[in-house]
């Protein structure tokens, strides 16, 4: 945080990027009024849950995003010589505070959309509370997917493209209601790379668009399980680490 201008500039860039993403969704909704039966306010809530989760993930886990460098350069050596779990040492190296803008955007969107939905009777206060919890599951799910992807670097070294595929693409895809996708893609986004569990499943139930009370239980369950699996993979990967020659 020693370069104030740098920080403000990256906040501005992040905010513009986030806004751009939402404008894309908003324009489509504005044109068609609803997407697969979701109104603009409902999509706003869906979008908010994901953005807060993704923003929190990017803020805390920024080093996972550039983990490829640690493997390519052998910088991971210096993490392994410290008396703490490697993931902890890695994440503590850097926080990307500028990503707070994504969270702020998400929360702002929720503040705009929720009152309209509550007045219209689609959303209850309990539902709103559930959506806030959902942001946490979304955060954990993004983290789990990113961790699993980063762990792949222990074997395949180059993971930048893989990261785009597993995290960036899936996260963007789940900004829309999954109803618009063919069944196989929906299945991928819910059960293979379960980013969709972090917003679509609980938000759909809360807004009364389908699902069972299980829709509220499943996301935290899937999030915790994914994290455990990803961390297992990470620990296994550590033993495969090659380092680099000097």
């Amino acid at each position: 945080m020693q370069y104030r201008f740098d920080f403000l500039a990256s906040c501005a860039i992040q905010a513009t990027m986030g806004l751009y993403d939402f404008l894309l969704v908003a324009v489509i909704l504005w044109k068609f009024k609803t997407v697969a039966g979701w109104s603009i306010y409902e999509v706003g809530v869906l979008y908010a849950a994901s953005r807060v989760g993704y923003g929190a993930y990017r803020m805390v886990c920024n080093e996972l995003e550039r983990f490829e460098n640690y493997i390519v350069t052998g910088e991971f050596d210096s993490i392994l010589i410290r008396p703490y779990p490697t993931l902890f040492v890695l994440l503590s190296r850097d926080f990307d505070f500028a990503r707070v803008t994504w969270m702020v955007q998400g929360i702002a969107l929720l503040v705009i959309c929720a009152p309209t939905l509550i007045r219209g009777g689609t959303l209850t206060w309990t539902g709103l509370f559930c959506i806030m919890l959902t942001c946490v599951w979304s955060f954990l799910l993004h983290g789990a997917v990113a961790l699993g992807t980063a762990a792949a670097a222990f074997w395949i070294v180059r993971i930048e493209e893989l990261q785009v595929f597993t995290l960036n693409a899936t996260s963007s895809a789940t900004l829309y209601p999954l109803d618009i996708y063919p069944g196989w893609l929906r299945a991928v986004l819910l059960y293979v790379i379960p980013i969709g569990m972090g917003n679509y499943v609980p938000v759909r139930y809360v807004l009364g668009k389908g699902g069972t009370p299980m829709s509220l239980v499943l996301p935290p369950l899937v999030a915790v399980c994914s994290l455990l699996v990803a961390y297992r993979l990470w620990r296994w990967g550590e033993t495969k680490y090659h380092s680099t020659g000097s």
Partner: protein
Amino acid sequence: MKEACEMAIVARDLVKVYRIAQRWPGVLGGLRTLFSPKYHDVRAVQGINFDIPAGQFVGYVGPNGAGKSTTVKMLAGILHPTSGTITVNGLSPQSQRQRLAWQIGVVFGQRTQLWWDLPTVDSFELLAAMYEVPRNDYLDFMKTFSDLLGINEFLDTPVRRLSLGQRMRADLAAALIHRPRVLFLDEPTIGLDVVAKSRIREFLQQINESRGVTILLTTHDLRDIEELCKRVMVINHGRLVYDGSLSSLRDSAGLPTVLSVKYDSLPRGLQEGSLISANGDGARNNHDTGWTVESIDRPTGTVRVAFDRNRSSAPSVIWAMRSFGEIMDVSLTEPLIEEIIKRLLKSE
């Protein structure tokens, strides 16, 4: 159990094989690599055994790619051996990595462990916090290391702006902040000038003697070994080819310094491989000097003579060489580790 207490480092049948994926050649090579990968194994370390008692200062030398760094990285818990076992201070660097990390210090000459953009002192503060160093011990550390390594000269400078010598001093201090019992040093003098090197050597000696820290040092510079290590281990192609005292290494391989002498015309009476005696008559009976003509470059009239610095002085060799012709120029080359190994393998 008794052995584990006395021995700081124990390595048994240590093997490390790197499996390297090979790319198929051609336009579709990348695709083919993905679906039918082809591997070849690089046997970096192939069955190494050694014991290092607590408090010993051991030099670990070998040419590039011999497996030095791989061994050190396995000892420090960075790499997992393909087979074999390691014990450092009675702990396994692999399964007890975190516990062991409290007790060891690691320095890589090629890479800093410090925070690149922060003032040097911040790195020390962060490490002190990380290793839970009590405040008094930390102040004590700062004082001691300012005296020994002069780290107080550049505490406020960001690490990226330190000179190589300063950075190495800072890295050494950082590796010792938690008072480790064992120190692994991978090429700590690489790229440093003579003054910086000797400062670091002096410091390492002090740490080894006053604190009883066990030190394993890899190096290319035989001077490091000569001045610091009572024991030398030589690794070549992943195997230990020598483990013993420096003096017996010298006996079996010599530490050949090479003197190049340029004459104004082709010197008389010299042949490759001939021995030279102190009075310069190319004597047959003077084996004790051990001065050997390595090569003669006829077009330039340059003769290269190998001799052992610890037995003869350079002036005495030059003096003897005078009797073969008019000397135009001389230069000295210090022995390279590659040369030692060549001689070592030859003498076996």
